[in-house]
């Protein structure tokens, strides 16, 4: 499956990657190559293979519902670019 330029632009937008105009061509090619490899894998018969959710053959350990974290706001906000009244400040977002 070969990608179009517009596919690459859309994928880049979804991942919030800013590609230079002259980079788009290269990504279109290399991403298409990866998809070609996937096409090759698709040819394998997987009828008897259970889909894999995780490469480790193990199951999730559970944690008891007990508060273990105390308030570390001051420490955690010391690395934030902007804070006010205990809030993290970010560039304005409004739908």
């Amino acid at each position, binding site marked *: 499956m070969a990608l179009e330029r517009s596919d690459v632009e*859309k994928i880049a937008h*979804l991942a*919030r990657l800013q590609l230079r105009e002259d980079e788009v061509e290269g990504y279109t090619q290399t991403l298409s190559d990866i998809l070609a490899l996937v096409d090759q894998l698709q040819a394998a018969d997987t009828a008897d293979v259970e889909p894999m*959710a*995780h490469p*480790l053959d*193990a*199951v*999730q*350990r*559970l*944690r*008891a*519902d*007990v*508060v*273990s*974290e105390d*308030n*570390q*706001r001051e420490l*955690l*906000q010391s690395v934030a670019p*902007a804070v*006010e*009244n*205990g*809030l*993290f*400040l*970010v*560039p*304005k*977002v*409004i*739908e």
Partner: protein
Amino acid sequence: MEWETVIGLEIHVQLATKTKIFSGSSTAFGAEPNTQACAVDLALPGTLPVFNENALRMAVMFGLAIDAEIGKRSVFERKNYFYPDLPKGYQTTQLAEPVVGRGHVDIERADGSTHRVRIHHAHLEEDAGKSLHEDFHGMTGIDLNRAGTPLIEIVTEPDMRSADEAVAFARTLHSLVTSLGICDGNMAEGSLRFDVNVSVRPKGTETLGTRTETKNLNSFRFMEEAIELEVERQIDVLESGGEIRQETRLYNGDTKVARAMRSKEEANDYRYFPCPDLLPIVIDDAYVEAVRATLPILPAQWKATFVEQYGLSDYDASVLSSNNVQAAYFDQVAKACGDGKLAANWVMGELAKHLNQHDTDIQASPVSAEQLGGLLERIKDNTLSGNIAKKVFEIMWQDGGSADEIIEAKGLKQVTDSGAIEQIVDQVIANNTKQVEQYQAAEPDKRGKMLGFFMGQVMKASGGKANPGAVTGILKQKLDALCD
């Protein structure tokens, strides 16, 4: 043309765990901003999620309560999108293998008939933080206390046909999750949030119309208003030859106005994939059975018991069973006094009135079920009249104590002894000669009405303690004797 409304719901239920779904931060409501947001919740590099066993248990409880298939193996996936209240850049949720599969919830329509709403599935996921768009020098403030709060998202089939049915479903679900104790049910704080999918189609056709989704309705009233408004809008658009766009809408309950939020054509492609930080969750039959053993009596079961055992009306049984604590309280009162209808009247009347006035709930009621049951027993055996019982209740509410203690201390025992009542009646007749003359002069069929005056006088003279039934009989007999 006649139109049919088709409604499906997605409900976000905040689970009443102490800590977050993947971290040990507290989930208590109302804390100072970001004081309950640890490194995991903030998605700092190097942190890893560890799944909360209580969130799993509560999700399984819900699944069992709606008679659903329980996913013996469920998988967390990443739903990728960028928004500042979601620090990881993805929401950890479930998609292909949710913890709760197909189930159903039976609702009751206004006419008393039952309607089954199918549940497509329910999955575990994390809540996002909150964005505050007030003016922070042109910036947005972010509070991540809510980020990582465990949710189950419940998705129904499009099985509702009116706003009324949707609201009935919402109410039933609310009482179910609160009775299970898996959600505090506080809609104003966002503990239960409804998204409604609405479409219309010509009556008699099968194909579903294009739907819109109205998000984040946090009261039953807003939900009803939003659905009615949207149905009206869609019919207007279609009847004037337009087309419905698939879009997300927001309803403002204060201004009663809805607007489109974003259209689905430009919607994000969420690029789900299994979360490599979390292993599959595997549970066995023993686990499921252990959870089943902890299920409380559910509203539908309470209701059936109240109708069958105590002969309550459908309405009374619905009200009393809507909340588990209230249902158990009522059941105890009814058992103690042996009269379900009397117990229902008091729990829904005097008790509810006091709880309301003091802005408290039944859990914190100063009058226990045992105390109220004891009081009603004394109405049953004629020790107290209904009015005096209200006084005793008032004292109980203020100062505590059992009915018998209060009756003894205040000398409130009802007078049923006919000799004592006759004495009072004679006195009242002697003291009110004018009214007696009027009674004598009246047409016999008008006299019944005039009895009220004498009743009042006798009750007053007895300090409210005379048995009203006995007083009526004796009064009538004595007055009528004067008329011959």
